């Protein structure tokens, strides 16, 4: 994950935190170390960013070996930090988003039919056209038919033809399921876009950068921050 900016436009504040567990990769959210008595932060889990300190900008190794230096990690602690995360098509880093190649035309521009939509509902997420008549257009998903199709209420401006290519993600600024949760990939460095919308850690979606299968991003603020409200 990357630092995508700050809502308030201010400067990042970097602090070094004592580690309760090793941080193996830069650019991952770290959370309050509530499970140990000896550390200040640990890496997040794939499904929770509860009481996060922010985004780690380097790595650190936790150790109990007596040495001159202790294990610390530098964290950007701004509560209004906008995290920019690459959308992964699965739980493994770098998985391309599933291409939805329509198998049935939709003259009204509302139904994207392809069994590859999967079984994880993306209602309140976003679908966008990567190739075809509606390229560059996106809509919020309102109906999900498992392994069959996705449907939008606001139609795409032109008819959906067979072999058009679309992508979907379970995120949007709709205000319901798609706007408040995210899950990371295995190493916590990207966001898993194959999840059920509305599951995972608490976030607030700020924006989406919708490009191709391997270069689309979601921008969000970590909603359950240790320096904000007590809990969400």
């Amino acid at each position: 994950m990357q630092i995508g900016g700050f809502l308030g436009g201010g400067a990042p504040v970097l602090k070094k935190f004592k580690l309760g567990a090793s941080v193996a990769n830069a650019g991952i959210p770290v959370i309050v170390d509530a499970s140990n008595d000896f550390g200040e932060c640990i890496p997040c889990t794939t499904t929770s960013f509860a009481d996060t300190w922010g985004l780690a900008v380097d790595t650190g190794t936790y150790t109990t070996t007596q040495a001159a230096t202790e294990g610390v990690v530098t964290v950007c602690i701004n509560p209004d930090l906008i995290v920019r995360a690459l959308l992964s098509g699965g739980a493994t880093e770098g998985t391309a988003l599933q291409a939805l190649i329509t198998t049935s035309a939709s003259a009204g521009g509302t139904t994207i039919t392809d069994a590859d939509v999967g079984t994880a509902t993306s209602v309140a997420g976003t679908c966008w056209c990567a190739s075809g008549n509606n390229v560059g257009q996106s809509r919020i998903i309102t109906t999900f038919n498992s392994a069959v199709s996705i449907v939008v209420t606001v139609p795409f401006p032109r008819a959906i033809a067979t072999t058009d290519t679309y992508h979907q993600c379970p995120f949007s600024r709709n205000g319901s399921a798609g706007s408040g949760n995210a899950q990371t990939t295995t190493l916590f460095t990207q966001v898993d876009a194959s999840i059920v919308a509305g599951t995972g850690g608490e976030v607030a979606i700020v924006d989406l950068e919708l490009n191709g299968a391997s270069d689309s991003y979601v921008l969000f603020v970590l909603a359950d921050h240790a320096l904000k409200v007590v809990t969400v």
Partner: protein
Amino acid sequence: MSHAQVLAPRHDWTLADKVREVFGRPRGRLPGSYLDDVATQRQCIILCPQCEGKYRPRRRGYRVWREYLVGGKCDACRAQGPRNVAWMAEEHHACVIGARPVRRGRWAL
């Protein structure tokens, strides 16, 4: 220019000095060798404007965070300031900052 940079180890520590917690560069340690250790661990280096010209993280494979000045404590002189410069290891820089497309002021279609 007066500056808090310690150029030689101090020996006249008071008891209050000794018991104060030091997070980062240990008391009595020269900044240069401490920053070398930090660079060896590939951790982020924060330098205040006064210290910036005295150490070159670029030689250790670091890249400066150009987009922002950062708030934080200088790793060399321990001065807390809002306009410090952060240097990141190159391998971390790409992860955290990312490669921004160069538009050169032209409108992209």
